[in-house]
């Protein structure tokens, strides 16, 4: 299997590798895939609650070079976008950017799923936080 230059570049220099604190209310975590299937992606994003802008994104991926490149690219793309903009990212755009062959399309699907999973986690936390905040605020006043 030959890889596109962009896949090789991301594989050799993956962007935004690492982890963010899972418990942070402003951090959404997405963990998708399964070890039995040969790929697992963890994507984390820190969202500014005021502006809804994704300020930080980190990933870790177990998978082939295309899976690593797809998730590395995803972290690059979501940074600076709003939650709604990030949710609109389609796997086909990742396929196009990285020149993925048909057998590797599932890597891009997984990356899209990881973005959605992370942001859904953030939304879930965020709505919980919103409910919690006024109550706490009321008590301190």
């Amino acid at each position, binding site marked *: 299997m030959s890889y596109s230059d962009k896949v090789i570049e991301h594989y050799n220099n993956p962007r935004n590798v690492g982890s963010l604190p899972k418990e942070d209310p402003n951090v959404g975590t997405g963990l998708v895939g399964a070890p039995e*299937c*040969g790929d*697992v992606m963890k994507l984390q994003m820190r969202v500014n609650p005021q502006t809804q802008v994704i300020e930080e994104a980190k990933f870790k991926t*177990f998978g082939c070079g295309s899976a690593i490149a797809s998730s590395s690219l995803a972290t690059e793309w979501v940074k600076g976008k709003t939650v709604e903009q990030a949710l609109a990212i389609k796997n086909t755009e990742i396929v196009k950017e990285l020149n993925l062959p048909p057998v590797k399309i*599932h890597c891009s699907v997984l990356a*899209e799923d990881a973005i959605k999973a992370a942001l859904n986690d953030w939304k879930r936390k965020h709505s919980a936080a919103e409910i919690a905040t006024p109550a706490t605020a009321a008590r301190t006043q």
Partner: protein
Amino acid sequence: MSVKLPIYMDNHATTPVDPRVLEAMLPFFNERFGNAASRNHPFGWSAEEAVENARAQVARLIGATPKEIIFTSGATESNNLAIKGVAEMYREKGNHIITQVTEHKAVLDTCKRLEKGGCEVTYLRVGKDGRIILDDLRRAITPKTILITIMYANNEIGVVQPIAEIGKLAREKGVFFHSDAVQAAGKIPVDVNRDSVDLLSLSAHKFYGPKGVAALYVRRKNPRVQLAAIIDGGGHERGMRSGTLNVPGIVGLGKACEVAQADMAEESKRLSGLRERLKEGLFAKLDEIFINGSVDHRLPHNLNVSFAYVEGESLLMGINDVAVSSGSACTSATLEPSYVLKALGVGEDLAHTSIRFGLGRFNNEEEVDYVVDKVVQTVQRLRELSPLYEMAKEGVDLSKMQWQVAAGGEH
């Protein structure tokens, strides 16, 4: 220390032609180019003489007589001829064949085709060590059993089957025994009489001969095995395999057998030394790596290792100046991880992380050291990138996780 890159360490897939073999072959392309079946002029006689010399060289390697060697185009053909040839010839006697789950596809798919034609096939399981269980075999034999086909050594994990014990059992029960010895012939001592093997496949390109030429050993007495041909024509090879003989290839196969036999003791010792160096190098620097298959019953030049939490194809990508292969799904046409590792009970998660190292005649210590360093660096780097490694280090039991499989994925 300078190492010439890329390094070839995939000698189970194929091997380079040994210069001694190439030299022996060359005259047969243009000087001694005759058809070995031309009986009435010196060009034919010269080619025939070379073929008969090669037949004797092949026979010597496996303790057979020259008349028991049939030349074919490859071990896939040899396996097809042995299995289909027996199934057809002995149809009146029975229709049951016994094989096992980690055979090469050339055997498994041949058996599957015969099943469609009315044969019954038993696929024996293997233990965690990759070897069949002799009691299973004993129990599987019925009065309808005509053939047992069990490989000598496996192409992925290098595990050597208990061939002599299988042969003894087959002989007791009056069942023919075929062995696909493609990975073993020329590497470890194979003797069709010691092992009671009745049919045996071997292929030149697996032991420093050319591609496109192989042999099938067919026992002539005690017991005599007859085969129905699968290729009809001019009646070459005692009617079992028609077609003009590939004289340069056959000469190469013969020479490869001669060289392998002469060098085997020394070479297998040297290669098992290199293998130990590779193994110790990896184990000294990496945790959570596992050898797949039996360590004791193994070809001297094989090492198959799972590097937990690192997907095989991404590892191959990181060691792109080293030619090895992986049991990962991503490297296979079917997107399924290795069926051989699965049969051993290796979990699919670990099957995806496996790498097969196949050492060969032309590898040396410097290359092994280079490969160790490169693999260690890449595994460490990819583990830093692996969410599974992180979770395992945090004490998460990965087997108890509820994994969220991609909704639109192709899993």
